[in-house]
């Protein structure tokens, strides 16, 4: 994939199955603590292995990764269940109206559909602690904004196509914002640093503004 990266790909599988395969391989390679690896990037159907090309030839590394995969147990650690409180009040959810309208639903009904769904963290990417979630009800799928916002508030919960994500920090962004969580998603001084990890099961619990203020970790 480059002179310093290899890519494992699981395609043609349903999303959750592909995610489980990627997570399993990620766990196996992490557990093997192989010297000369710089980064592992799990994604929906791929795992990118970034390595030091002075330490490995691609052929030798592929062989070593295969060994690690064979030696690993029966897949990733059990999934955590995490409830993410989310406020959808006016001002917290600038695109909720449009997402609901696109689905042909009232705002209340769209929020109900959203908060009764079970999501899975496919991987973290884009920014530290930013989860890509699978499990959005298909009718709520909405394309990204044609013009990204120059600033998306920290904790914003967004939709991009069939993906759901949460912004761990205020950044520019084009996802449709349908609510905001008071939880801190990423803190390098905390153990664990990231609130959510690949494989976690996520449910959203709707909270009001007062509760948002009470829980606010910012």
């Amino acid at each position: 994939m480059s002179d310093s990266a290899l890519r494992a790909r699981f395609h043609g599988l349903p999303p959750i199955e592909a995610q489980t395969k990627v997570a399993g391989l990620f766990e196996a390679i992490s557990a093997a603590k192989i010297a000369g690896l710089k980064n592992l990037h799990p994604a929906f159907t791929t795992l990118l292995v970034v390595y030091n090309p002075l330490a490995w030839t691609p052929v030798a590394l592929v062989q070593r990764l295969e060994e690690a995969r064979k030696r690993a147990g029966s897949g990733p650690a059990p999934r955590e269940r995490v409830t993410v409180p989310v406020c959808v009040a006016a001002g917290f959810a600038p695109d909720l109206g449009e997402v609901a309208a696109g689905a042909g639903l009232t705002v209340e009904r769209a929020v109900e559909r959203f908060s009764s769904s079970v999501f899975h963290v496919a991987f973290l990417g884009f920014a530290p602690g930013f989860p890509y979630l699978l499990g959005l009800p298909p009718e709520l799928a909405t394309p990204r904004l044609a013009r990204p916002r120059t600033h998306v508030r920290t904790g914003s919960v967004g939709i991009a196509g069939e993906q759901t994500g949460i912004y761990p920090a205020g950044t520019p962004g084009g996802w449709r914002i349908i609510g905001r969580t008071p939880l801190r998603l990423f803190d390098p001084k905390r153990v664990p640093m990231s609130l959510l990890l690949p494989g976690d099961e996520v449910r959203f619990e709707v909270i009001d503004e007062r509760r948002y203020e009470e829980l606010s970790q910012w």
Partner: protein
Amino acid sequence: MVTTVEVLAPGMQTTVQDLGRPGYGHLGVSACGAADGLALRVGNLLAGNCEGAAALEMTLLGGRFRFHGAARCVLAGADFDCKLDGIPVKLWAPTDIRAGQTLAFGGAGTGARCYLCLGGGLLIEPVLGSCSTHIPSGIGGIDGRPLVKGDLLSIPAPADSPPPRPIRRAVLEKLRPASDILRVTAAAQTASFADESVSNLHSLPWTVQSDSSRMGVRLAGVALTAPLRGSMTTEGAPLGAIQVTPSGEPVILFVDHQTTGGYPKIACVIAADHWRIAQLRPRQTVRFDHVPFAEARRLLLEREALLRPEVLFG
């Protein structure tokens, strides 16, 4: 014993950088690190430091720094016309600084980035194992941001050691030959591109856009045809990968790049040439030469051999 360096003027974008923050990519944390890692490594070795010590990275326009105590410095990378109390300072050589002196950088005549390596290295609290500043996520360095006027940087008081041996100029020239060519290998989606796009990438000149940054270097030229429009699944992206946006514009993912991306990658700049990306100037033209993977590795091994102390120093 610790002494301080006061930032009188920060320059255009001056950040604390070391060799980066690998190991947290699965949490979405960018590997980050010095844009011109080769300059940082050589500069640190010349300052008597370990090659990955934290130093200042300046971009296009350097800063002014007052030294409250004695220090030894090495400038590495592009020549920013630096003066110590009005006296020109040589690049790639140690310079001893006395308490009260001011180091003033100008702009880059050629190249784009200069490193100020200080004996003992900057004393910065590492975040996730690195002092590197990642501005987009506000992590590392000084509060995760570029330097501002009034910042105070701590460095160890200089050890009473003889200056390190001088660099062999011939080796330096071999390490950093002037060229407007970046060598590239194939990348994950190269085969999905039309042959014409791939041959255009390799045969035509590209102009570096002025809104390029440590995250990505945007190039202008003939529009390439991006395949897989909208249907590519987001995946991990390596440093140096050349993504093609839906508008047909190539972007080289650089040191601060996001860990994952959803645009197809047409090629990838080889590791041995990553430092060159750091030295590209806005509006400069650049060309891409294809090399096989084995050649990319050979070039890197050849480069690393030149960095061995017995080769690098006279």
